[in-house]
């Protein structure tokens, strides 16, 4: 009789695994109550590639023009699942930044809306000696966290349009279920959209800029990098689409399936809203850590503030 392995391709089992990961983060925190910890000087590989990536692509497009242009077509209404996350630095514990991570998964199918909120979850950040500030460390942790949720959702999404709040080229690997899942990564503040959006027609239109492979070319599949104006007179965004060859259909389906706010998918905007840490959540997380886990949190020393306030106007 063989050992029965849990099928991670079901959502329930996926969340069970996630739960145990979150519990391991808490256990790591608890160890700090008793142990004298040294520094953890690890993890300096991932830098913010976004701007660099955008600028390279922009140069190429300005030199060669769009690879392909298309209008938004009449799309098919599909289930839309949006994922977004946020991070807040709660303080320092044992010399390491203590973060709070939170994510939201919003699912729209016709008029039905469902939301799953994950967190706030406390997590100790790895210390990155090369990171210019603890903010960067926090962003790296956020990307790891988001990627974990995104992978979990992608594996189990079925025939759905997945919306992520980031360019897909930045993802190390992404495996999607083979039953018609499409992933669209939307970047709001892309240099590409700012510069190339003007070239798009005011009516709904899209332009293919490039085909790219994700950071891990062995695991990941090809991605279409596009600039898109989903709604007439709406804003233009960078949108990365996977599978790469279905970029026109996928973005047309998105325009047909979701409400658009200034051209931005409402489901992703809702995921953004539900994933933000409110002030109350930050205070509550600190209270839980201090009162229930007995941790002592120390705020980061604001040298500028300490030296110059109250006369520093910033």
């Amino acid at each position, binding site marked *: 009789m063989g050992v029965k392995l849990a099928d991670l391709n079901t959502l329930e089992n996926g969340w069970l695994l996630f739960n145990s990961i979150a519990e391991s983060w808490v256990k790591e925190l608890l160890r700090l109550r008793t142990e004298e910890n040294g520094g953890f000087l690890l993890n300096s590989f991932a830098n913010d590639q976004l701007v660099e990536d955008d600028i390279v692509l922009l140069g190429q497009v300005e030199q060669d023009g769009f690879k392909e242009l298309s209008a938004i077509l009449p799309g098919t209404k599909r289930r839309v699942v949006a994922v977004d996350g946020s991070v807040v630095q709660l303080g320092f514990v044992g010399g390491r930044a203590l973060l709070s991570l939170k994510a939201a998964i919003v699912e729209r199918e016709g008029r039905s809306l469902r939301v799953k909120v994950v967190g706030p*979850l406390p997590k100790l950040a790895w210390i990155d000696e090369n990171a210019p500030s603890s903010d960067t460390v926090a962003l790296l942790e956020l990307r790891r966290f988001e990627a974990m949720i995104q992978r979990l959702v992608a594996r189990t999404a079925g025939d759905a349009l997945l919306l992520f709040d980031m360019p897909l080229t930045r993802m190390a690997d992404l495996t999607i279920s083979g039953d018609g899942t499409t992933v669209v990564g939307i970047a709001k503040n892309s240099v590409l959209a700012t510069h190339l959006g003007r070239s798009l027609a005011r009516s709904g239109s899209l332009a293919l800029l490039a085909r790219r492979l994700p950071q891990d070319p062995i695991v990941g599949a090809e991605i279409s990098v596009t600039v898109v104006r989903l709604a007439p007179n709406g804003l233009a965004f960078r949108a990365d689409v996977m599978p790469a060859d279905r970029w026109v259909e996928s973005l047309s389906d998105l325009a047909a399936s979701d409400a658009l706010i200034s051209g931005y998918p409402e489901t992703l905007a809702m995921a953004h809203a*539900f994933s933000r840490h*409110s002030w*109350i959540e930050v205070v509550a*997380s600190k*209270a839980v850590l201090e009162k229930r886990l007995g941790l002592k949190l120390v705020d980061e020393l604001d040298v500028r503030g300490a030296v110059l306030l109250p006369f520093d106007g910033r």
Partner: protein
Amino acid sequence: MKVFRKSGDKVELLALSWDASLRLGDYLVAEEDGRRILLQVIDVEYADVPGLMEDILRDLSGSAFEEVERLDPMDVLSVIRSIRDSRVVVAKVRKVNNAEPDVLWLPSRYTSKVRRVEVAELLREVVPVPKVPVKLGEGVVVDVMNVEGSVTLIVGRKESGKSHLSKVLASGLARAGCNVVVLDVNGEYVSLGRRRNGERSEVSELMKVLTPGLNYQVQLASLSDEVLADVMTYALGLPQTSMRELLKLFRDLRRRSVLNFANLLRAVQSVPMNESVREALANRLLTLESTGLFTDDHHEAEGDQLETLFPPDRGVLVVFDISKLSALQRRVFVEYLLSRLKELLLNDEIDPVVLFAEEAHLYLRETYWEDVITRMRHIGISTVLITNQPDSIPALIYRQADNVFMFNMRNGSDIDHLARNLEIDTETLRSMLPNLPQGTVLAWGKVVGRLPVVFKVIDPYLMTLGRTRTKLGRMVQHG
């Protein structure tokens, strides 16, 4: 709970929702290193939490969702809920370090401990151990020595519980050994001798119910010159010149032992005097006789020996049921009673009495109010005034009042009237009085160490007849 900020005598404390089981008037103490500040809760507001509007809007938008699921292994949500609903408890400084509130010391916002103080604990600290204890509320035992010899006011709107407290107080005083006289204007004290289940109450042996004109009449010949003068002058408005004429005739007939209404009236008609004086005297005498409160016949007269109602060795509760008397009869009787009590007290024939007067403005002359605070209590008449019209009691009474019991009151001008004349600030009264539940009182004065204290008056299970009488009520009761 943590001290948040202070402005003047007002302190704001931050409390999470689980601390919010506070009630208006509750006492809190903020302590630090042996020093303490005593605070009284006068209001509770929502805390102005940063980002609250965004948070509520997000929550509101969640109602459009078919399903909202949360993965929250740390159970942060329970704390979030509590912070969202956090409160600002508004309190007034009542004492600092057991001194007055002008001492410049404040507890630390972070290290001071805030805890609730039960009324019983508070009273133990601010009032000496009662020599003659009477229980008025749960944990509230007052020394009725602070009621006898004092002016006590009980105010509140209709059916707020004033009469209930006055019955508890009157019964307690009588049981403690006081001479209690009740002017029962609504006939609601007459059944205090019975419990609601029909059994005899603890005051049944001490109680005597008298109805003037019915089982309490006074022989005309037994009236002293002073009592007659008070009744004729203050109750019937006889001018002084006419009074002198009447007294001459009154003394003459009494000296000859032929004093009765008929002879007095005959004398008025026959003796030479100014015609207008004659007419005034004749009218007043006929009116006095028509009240039925006074009689010629020594045998018919009952209860004329007022002094016998007050034995020196035990307390007594004498209820004069004046509910069925006309306005004139009430005025005449009350004037007689007060005048006679003064006489007996001045002659040391009885021990001091505590007089309970409900809606006294309906039957007491205006000059009586000054008497209350100048002469009466020195003579030995302590007064407990009960009213639902606080402005019917003059300001000078409030300012001299030793104890004030305030029940629910919603009329702003009534509350302002109290605030103007008492040592309690308007904010406290405006916050507390409209929100007091029925039967709960805000007490202030000697009995509670001059701190405003809120408590629910005990139910002594006495049969009370103070409810509003309605035909529909009777029909419903009888099916």
